[in-house]
């Protein structure tokens, strides 16, 4: 049996684990990891679809899509991580030096 169905199912499983994980965790880093896992799940399904013909070269279009997909998921992860890091630092500073740094009120202007 051509292994693509196995990998496609594994991709779908990854997608489900990631998606459910994303909505059931609160910690930012965990949610970023979950979104990465969801992303690789989808990409695994795409590449598995490319390899359905057991003979001859695989279908290049899904490969190109996956390349774009990886770059997009890396950029969103990097942006998420940068935001998380900055927030962690602001919160850390706020707890260390509460006196002379006014807490910005809940509602941003």
């Amino acid at each position: 049996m051509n292994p693509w169905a196995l990998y496609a199912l594994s991709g779908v499983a990854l997608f489900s684990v990631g998606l459910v994980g994303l909505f059931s965790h609160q910690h930012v880093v965990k949610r970023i990891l979950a979104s990465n896992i969801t992303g690789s799940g989808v990409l695994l399904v795409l590449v598995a679809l490319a390899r359905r013909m057991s003979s001859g070269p695989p279908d290049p279009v899904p490969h190109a899509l996956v390349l774009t997909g990886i770059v997009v998921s890396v950029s969103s992860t990097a942006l998420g991580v940068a935001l998380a890091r900055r927030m962690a630092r602001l919160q850390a500073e706020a707890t260390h030096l509460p006196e002379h740094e006014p807490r910005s009120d809940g509602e941003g202007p």
Partner: protein
Amino acid sequence: MTSVAALMVWPVILPLLGAVLALLVGRPGVRLVAGVASVATLMASSMLAWEVAHQGVLHQSIGGWGAPLGIEWRADGLAALMLLTIALVGPLISVHALDHFGDREDREFLPLWLFVWCALNALVLSADAFNLYVTLELTTLAAVALIAVRRDLPGLDAGLRYLLFALPGSLCYLLGIALLYGAHATLDVGTLAQRVQPGPVTWVAAGLVTVGLCLKTPLFPLHVWLPPTYTGAPTPVTALLSALISKGSFYVLLRLWLEVFAPVMDAQVGQLLGVLGAAAVLWGSALALNQTQLKRVVAYSSVAQIGYMFLVFPMATSGARAGAIYLVVSHAAAKASMFVAVGNIHQAVGITALGGVQGLAHRMPFTFLAMALGGISLIGIPPSGGFIAKWLLLNEAIGTRQWWWGLVLLVGSLMAAAYVFRILRGSFLPLPPGVTVRSIPLGNELAPLALALIALVLGLVPWFPLDLLAIGASR
């Protein structure tokens, strides 16, 4: 023919080029470059809309490769109207943003806004499913960067919250597209529409695409990120988010649903979307009614207004489609003017609560007029674009014998009247004692008024947009 279709390139390339050059020139020249790029894109969009109005639907295959292999562009009446809306509402918000932000943020706000503009124009014109994914992703990331542009704690929290809800939405959409590609070996929306048959693949793919885009729009049960994000983000960014960026994902859903999925899915799924829309209307309006902060009221009103737009799915007639699009366009103008006006109030008196409106009518007449006209369009009272949209949807509800959607519309607009007039009511009271009013630059006051006038004109001259919309309407 090619020379006219080439017009479709500029609305996408010009803002992209503008953004890249704005990044390149750095601080001194940012405003100049962004200004030139904005004017050029505005002209390109209106020229394209003019051509579509006169020559009907335009097609263009990028790189000359044709449908299955290359990426197709299609500009029909709907796309032209969306291009015009983005080209009118967006720059007005960015004009307001210039005075709202300091110098540092300008250097980051303007290029990011041009990227959003390029992404939205690309999204509106594209007829390729995966290309839609890339444009959606570009809009999302630029929006997250915009939300966090001020680098304060609420902004960062809002940006992260938005990212961690929009990301899974795009990935669900991508998996849906992957399944469709697997089944029909094409990414072009037109060919997909011909090849799609009812079957497990189509149902699951449609489900994934719908859930993904409903996460980003957002539709009722998945809207939890909207209020905190809209209140955390700086006001001009919130205006951009609510007026334009959330409309991108709805536009994609409407396109895919009406052109690809509707013929093969049975009506019950459309009814489900309608029910969720109705729930959004009632839920959003109810919550908007008991908020104390100005921005939160307007944010929850977005949840309700998005609910109205989803009423198009159970009816799925060309009249309902025109109504939904008209609501999208007039909501963009009206909601943007409301948020920008709230930004003005906050800048002038520093109060974010409802009380901030007191005495507004005399000290900031233009801002008050903008909020009044915007509010009227949100409620759907003539003369406003909102009324025309409500009128079209109401007629379709009665025409297709589903009068209960009409009931939702009427009850929703009564609740909208409640919270809008709750905001406006205070503006006739005298200024509360001890409140000092900082004068804001005229440009800031005229921006919301211009936006509100767009909503007003949409209410006075509806035949022009409706004729434009009729071009290329499938059914």
